[in-house]
């Protein structure tokens, strides 16, 4: 009997470890080899110097980190945060009701609506962004239709619209996935207790779909934050974002050490966000 008592925790643990191994090892191996090792390679550059003609000179320096705190770069970070946050907010505001309606649709329409969300994205990112130029530019469609000559492009608002357009599906899909599994009886119970549709949404549906909201927000916020193509094409590079900074270091200045340092800073911000997200999702 005694030996059984001892044997128990060990073998239960073994059972759990086996599960962990089966489920986690393929993905984790993949992450280590193709994410962590390459990231380590990039980040190891942060403490070295730019070679005279680009490339890396393996001499230790802290200069990159000193540059990092320059108000110039902080200003760019603030703008990026602002635009990304705004994009995320708008995406959530229109993405949530959309996902909600899709989740309630009859089964056959559900798939259709869902696929219709991503279908435009099976064309091409750059083509779609250019489509906005056709729409919004001086001689573009909107102005022709309205008979006006407004300058609609090259503004921060245009950047937000472009980011929104690019990342809205990343908001809708996780939200759909979260809303779809809610027990409809909970909404019924809420209505029965006198809650209006909106209150039910606020008090029951929304709190129960917080994990989906968090995932969607992360999916929209982060690539918006790190984007460089849209500020360039739709914003005319008049406001740049963190992504542009990093891109410029890697591709223009060929200052990989500083580019890696900026990337490190970005990753640090992301990790904080990701940890917060993981924490909030587990709590929800």
């Amino acid at each position, binding site marked *: 009997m005694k030996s059984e008592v001892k044997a128990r925790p060990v073998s239960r643990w073994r059972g759990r470890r086996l599960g962990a191994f089966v489920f986690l090892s393929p993905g984790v191996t993949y992450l280590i080899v193709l994410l962590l090792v390459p990231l380590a390679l990039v980040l190891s550059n942060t403490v070295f110097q730019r070679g005279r003609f680009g490339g890396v000179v393996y001499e230790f320096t802290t200069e990159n980190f000193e540059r990092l705190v320059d108000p110039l770069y902080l200003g760019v970070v603030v703008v990026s945060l602002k635009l990304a946050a705004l994009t995320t907010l708008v995406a959530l505001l229109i993405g949530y009701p959309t996902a909600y309606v899709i989740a309630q649709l009859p089964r056959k329409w559900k798939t259709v609506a869902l696929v219709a969300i991503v279908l435009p994205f099976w064309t091409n990112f750059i083509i779609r962004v250019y489509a906005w130029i056709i729409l919004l530019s001086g001689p573009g469609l909107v102005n022709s239709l309205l008979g006006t000559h407004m300058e609609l492009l090259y503004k921060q608002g245009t950047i937000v619209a472009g980011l929104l357009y690019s990342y809205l599906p990343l908001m809708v899909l996780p939200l759909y996935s979260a809303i779809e599994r809610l027990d409809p009886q909970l909404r019924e119970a809420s209505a029965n207790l006198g809650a209006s549709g909106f209150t039910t949404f606020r008090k029951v549906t929304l709190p129960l779909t917080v994990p989906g909201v968090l995932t969607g927000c992360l999916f929209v916020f982060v690539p918006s934050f790190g984007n460089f193509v849209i500020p360039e094409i739709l914003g005319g590079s*008049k406001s*740049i974002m963190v992504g542009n900074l990093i891109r410029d270091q890697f591709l*223009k200045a060929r200052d990989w050490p500083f580019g890696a340092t900026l990337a490190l800073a970005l990753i640090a911000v992301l990790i904080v966000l990701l940890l917060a997200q993981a924490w909030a999702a587990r709590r929800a």
Partner: protein
Amino acid sequence: ACGGESSTSSEGTTAAAADQLKPNADLSQQTLQITVWDGYTPAELPQKVKEKLHVKDMKVTLHDTNEIAMTKLTAPGDSGIDVAFVSGQYAQALNAAGLLEPIHPELIPNLANLYPEATQLSYDKGNKYSVPYTWGTTGICYRSDLVKSEPKSWNDLLKPPSWADKKVTMMTTERWLALPALKALGYSLNTDKDDEIAKVKDALVAQKPHLLTYDDTTFGEKLKSGEAVMVEAWDGWCPTTDPKGNIKFVVPKEGSDLWVDTMVIMKSSKNKEAAHALINYILDPEIHSWAAENINYKVPNKAAMERVTIPKGSLLGIKPAELLNGESIIDLGQASTKYTRLSTEVTAQQ
């Protein structure tokens, strides 16, 4: 100019001892892999090269910008590229990094077709590691029917008159972002002096509220549509041959640059004989003239240019001597980050 000297004599050329190449190597044992801008070589080039040079195979990779090409070429590991097309100052940087094979002139008899001026370009005097493919300058491209007065000075772009307010564009590729202000202020395009760069920055920041946008690629479209009336442009991309005939190009009185897009052979190439043969083939007037006729850039190839019939309004007529008035952009090594920083600081300005 001083930057040019220092880099041509830098470690690159001296360190990279030339391989022994066999003039009569069996090219059918070699393959070719080139990287080039889209549309910058004839689509049927690989086919023709295979037929003419009897190489086993030839493949073309496209790159969009010099910077991306540089990233691929400078990454650790074998890029697999034999011949790369990059602009002059990048060829200079690649060479300085020891990545280029010196050109073996004996394997490229067609070098003789080049204008003499094209062998004395400051980033690579004597074509030691690069062979020029196209060249040109930068100026103001404008709508003659929409401007109240013809632009003459870079200042017309930097401080646009009220009728051009928010109807001008600039390029952001950093050396070209700085060019108008550098020239307007009378500085060298290759300056690395902090105070001069600071003044340039002030000028560009002051200009920013009056810009339509920064644009490196589609400024021609914007002129045609009338969204912009004056833009900073490379000569070949200024659509002066537009049938409406209302687009003109001017090199401002303060002067401008001379840019060159070149062909280089990678040191890592295992097909160096074939690479030389390819460059030689491209310098053939019949092939090289294709570039002038199709991409509207002048080629530094006398024999080729003579074959070209120059359409009305085209800038192909600019003579090499005129081009040489422009200052060559050379790689500034460590100091080039100052221009990145300038570009960042200007664009980051809200």
